[in-house]
């Protein structure tokens, strides 16, 4: 474990050291990387540690909530009630939430036999935008586009979403104990501009369910997603449960 470690003390320094991310392992909270290292599946040679980079600010500027990439999941879990707080409360357990970060959760790859990155669903539903740095410089884009694009070589700096975010619903199906991975997550926000539907926990990334947004028909979620088989649940079960969860969420926001 004699990796070269880089510890930037500002966001600008982090961006500069990150470069285009080549041959670099980025450590946010470490809750996903450390088990990979312990198991011998990851052997970092150059590590960028963000814990001193000042990316942990959580603040509200007028109508915009800004969440630094290093904001702990625990801070979101303890925040005002909303879809983000609800899903944050279900990540792992209290101790892991204290170390895990929103940036790390957003960028999480699947585990061995489970899906991660639950927070993608509420962030999509909130219409959140992610500001990232990397090759080609800094850019800001909707979360769903960031997740669907090629994000190798991007360093997440901050997330932001607008308030108010309308009526909302957070639906999840998982076993009822700490550390259980999701079978399926559905988040919906409904404003005057329409619905935003975020789905996570059913595949490698969270997705935006645009067919459901258009039709307001829960069964259309199967047009938007392609759930996977894993150790937690079968794709078939996920498909059946998603229709139920989307239906409940639509009811709750008053939009079925």
């Amino acid at each position, binding site marked *: *474990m004699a990796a070269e470690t880089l510890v930037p003390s500002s966001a600008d320094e982090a961006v500069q050291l990150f470069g285009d991310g080549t041959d670099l392992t980025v450590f946010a909270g470490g809750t996903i990387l450390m088990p990979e290292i*312990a*198991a*011998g599946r990851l052997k970092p040679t150059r590590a960028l540690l963000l814990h001193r980079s000042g990316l942990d600010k959580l603040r509200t500027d007028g109508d915009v909530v800004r969440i630094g990439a290093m904001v702990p999941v625990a801070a979101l879990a303890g925040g005002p009630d909303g879809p983000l707080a609800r899903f944050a409360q279900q990540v792992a357990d209290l101790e892991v939430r204290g170390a895990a970060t929103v940036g790390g959760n957003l960028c999480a790859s699947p585990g061995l036999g489970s899906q991660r990155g639950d927070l993608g669903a509420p962030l999509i539903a909130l219409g959140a935008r992610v500001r990232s740095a990397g090759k080609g410089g800094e850019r800001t884009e909707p979360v769903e586009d960031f997740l669907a694009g090629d994000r190798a070589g991007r360093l997440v700096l901050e997330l932001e979403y607008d308030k108010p975010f309308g009526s909302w619903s957070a639906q999840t199906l998982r076993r009822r104990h700490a550390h259980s991975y999701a079978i399926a997550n559905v988040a919906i926000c409904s404003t005057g501009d329409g619905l935003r539907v975020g789905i996570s926990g059913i595949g490698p990334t969270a997705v935006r369910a645009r067919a459901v947004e258009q039709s307001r028909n829960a069964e259309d979620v199967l047009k938007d997603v392609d759930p996977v088989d894993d150790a937690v649940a079968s794709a078939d079960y996920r498909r059946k449960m998603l229709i139920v969860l989307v239906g409940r969420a639509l009811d709750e926001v008053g939009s079925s």
Partner: protein
Amino acid sequence: MKAVGARLPRYDGVGHVTGRTQYVDDVRVGRTLWVKALRSPHHHAAITKLDTSKAEALKGVRAIITAADVPRNVYGHLEGLGVPGDEPLLADGEVRYKGQPIAAVAAESEEAAQAAVEVIEIAFEEKPTLFDIRLALDPEAPQIHQWGNVYPHYGPYNHRRVRKGDIDWAFEQADTIVEGVYRPQAIEQMPMETQVCLAVPEASGRLTIYSCTQAMYFSMGVVAAHLEVPLNKLKLVGGTVGGGFGGKVDTASDTICALLALKARHAVKWRWTREEEFLASSTRAAWHIEIADAVTSDGWILGRRMVTLHDSGAYARFSPYGVTKHAFHHSGAYTIPNLRFDGFVCFTNRVPTTAMRGFGVTSVSFAVETHLTRVASVLGIDPWELRLRNANRIGDTSGNGVVMHDPSTVAVTLAAAERVGIELPAEYRQMTSDARSGELLPEHLVAQQRLNGEGA
């Protein structure tokens, strides 16, 4: 006996709550090498190539062992009970379960040991697999064990048998036959402490092994047998085990660490990862149990036919013993005069199975009690009353002729009923374990009685 009923402090309680209790991984003996194992990625395969030379040349690697390094590679845990050995300590020419250890490395760090494992050259030719114990007796199924797919050494039989009375009579006489299939699943004991061993060669030529085994003297015998050394060459140090639940009665890590410590002439430690514990440590077995009870309309169980298939995994280990215990309890705490039980130890390409909390008996208790409730339901009889009528009493005999001198079924059942607020009729509340008589002694229960207490 002044301790009975007193609140006594745990002698290890203060150590536990102050972090001073010492588990094997906490023992420090100076510089220690770390062990990692090469484990089979296949469920069933021939090993066509195994070459450790590149691994041995790696920096920090001090010893590597394979089957060739084990003085006696095949040794059965129950050879003392007449169960022949069938399992190699380290795979020899083939692997029969995913996770089976093939080679073990001792190196100066955990990373160096793991790096060495990754450069061991190994090639396989996969073979057909068997996972469903219901196919074990099918001659068309892949044959995966040198004994065939079923343990053949129950005397002249390939199954544990219990025969009592006249089962055909019972099934002819019955008013109803009640059938059921019960399939308790495999369970990983998941102790909080994973399997771990520290082996230290002493100046005297003896070997000290700090072991997490649940059965120190037993493990000592196993290590001595594999190493072909007298027992007095070994000193096993036990202590506090971080949970075993039956999963630490077959700690192969003791023997593997002993061999590496001798070869490297150095203290070695092997601490299993949680993944290894889930993948490769022995589990409680899965079972397939079929019961058919010949019963009368008024609630007598005239006879029971039962077939049990037990998933022993790839090797026998303790399964022949577990199925024997299972067989002994297949009539439950009840007197059934006509019995026909066949229990098969079946081999599959899974991790060999072992004990967990009531080895062999938890499965049969679950099955027979569930079945009894089913019988009650079919007959329209109260399940408590059914149990109390058929309960073992003084002078009744078990399936293999053990005479009941002081059975507790009646007392315990009545106490349980009271605890959960069940109001039984007076005639049942007054029942005792006294020898059967009157209405509780129908004709068909006379022959199995041994009121003088002699064996059947």
